[in-house]
């Protein structure tokens, strides 16, 4: 782990000028429910990718390839916006 900075080294107003710094904190540990993505059902409409408040839906070449559980907090928005007829994402208890 990086050495903790003193207050004199911190940016004015707690601005983080390196947005990739958030990658250091793996916030997926907060999750109580996990989205389970079904590759066979997915029609790649990308609704989940658009609506994910983080960036936890992994997309490659315009297609969903999975969920990044290091950062997914299990809010369930992806499952909610997945078209009713498709239901490629379902929420399940984390400790299953």
């Amino acid at each position, binding site marked *: 782990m990086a050495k*903790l*900075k*003193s*207050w*004199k080294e*911190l940016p*004015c*107003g*707690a*601005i*983080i*000028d390196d*947005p990739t*710094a*958030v990658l250091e904190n793996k916030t997926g540990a907060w999750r109580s429910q996990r989205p389970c993505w079904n590759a066979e059902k997915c029609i790649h409409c990308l609704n989940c990718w658009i609506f994910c408040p983080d960036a936890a839906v992994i997309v490659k070449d315009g297609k969903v390839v999975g969920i990044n559980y290091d950062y997914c907090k299990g809010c369930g928005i992806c499952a909610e916006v997945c078209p009713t007829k498709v239901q490629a994402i379902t929420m399940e208890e984390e400790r299953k």
Partner: protein
Amino acid sequence: MILAKTGNEALAYAMKQINPDVVAAYPITPSTEIVQIFAQYVSDGKVDSEFVAVESEHSAMAACIGSAASGCRTMTATASQGLMLMHEMLFIAGGLRLPIVMPIASRSVSSPLNIHGDHSDSLASRDSGWLQFFCETVQEGYDTLIQCVKIAERTSLPAICAVDGFILSHCMERIETFEDKPVREFIGKYKPNWNLLDIKKPILVGPATMQDYFFEFKRSQIEGMNKALPIIEEVQAEFKQKFGRGYGVIEEYRCEDAEAVVLLMGSACGTMREAVDEMRNQGKKVGMVKLRVFRPLPHQVLAESLAKFKTVAVMDRADTVNAWGGALFTEISSVLYDSPTRPKMLSYVYGLGGKEFSLADAAAVLEQAHAGKKEDLVTYIGVR
């Protein structure tokens, strides 16, 4: 140009000359007219500002934070319950170090409901990380609001410019205004430290911090306020050079050989000046210290000024409900505690809910200060 203007009119006029990028505001007595007159300037095309008519003061400050975070020069105005509703957002603006500027027509806080002037609203916001200026006259309000823009931007701190509700906000005064051009030259072009909407330099604003960093960020914010005083003095000096009117962070009035002084803020300083003059005519060595900058508290300046007097009477226009003295009294006492010579301290609370503070009241305080003693620990002036 010499004009007759009420406090609200003068503050709105200063806002017009400042021509901020964004004003997001919600009207409330006694500061309603500031917003109303400014909205008229917007409708008449006299300013380039984007005016956002929000649904509450909480939203007003939230919109101001969003605007300031997007690199816009941002202003609002409020008072009393409005400032209370903003309370949560005030701390966020302070922590994000956004130089939002806000004139306030100081008013009491309910309950019971009262629309008149005292300092309860701004003093209740004292720990939110905003610069706080208290003005004695409408002229000072106009001048200070213009200074506030430069001070806020140079310190990266939000600023409150308070005039007493009704006593200043609604009373007409002869004021000397400047032309628009020199005002705009004085405040200059705003160069924000960062801009949330700059996609070439992406940043994260308002991160969550844990036990390992929150205190360090607060310490950094405190340092920003600690270092604000010389910047305020610098801007005051630049203002004096350009416009010929000068203000200090404090003002000593007839204090040269004074034995006892009264310290206070806001419009009552005018009454106190008269009372000091009358006492001086009777040969009594009394004076007044006017505090103009409440945040940052000019600790060193106050300690050096006040330690030379035998008695310092401190007058608060807001009460702390059982801190045994108003906020000003306890803070000034704290400033003087470690002085080599420690004056006798007297505590007074006056004028809550706009209660009349008369020349006779001011004279009575000076008499007690001159005698160096009074019976009660805290005296509530004029309360039946």
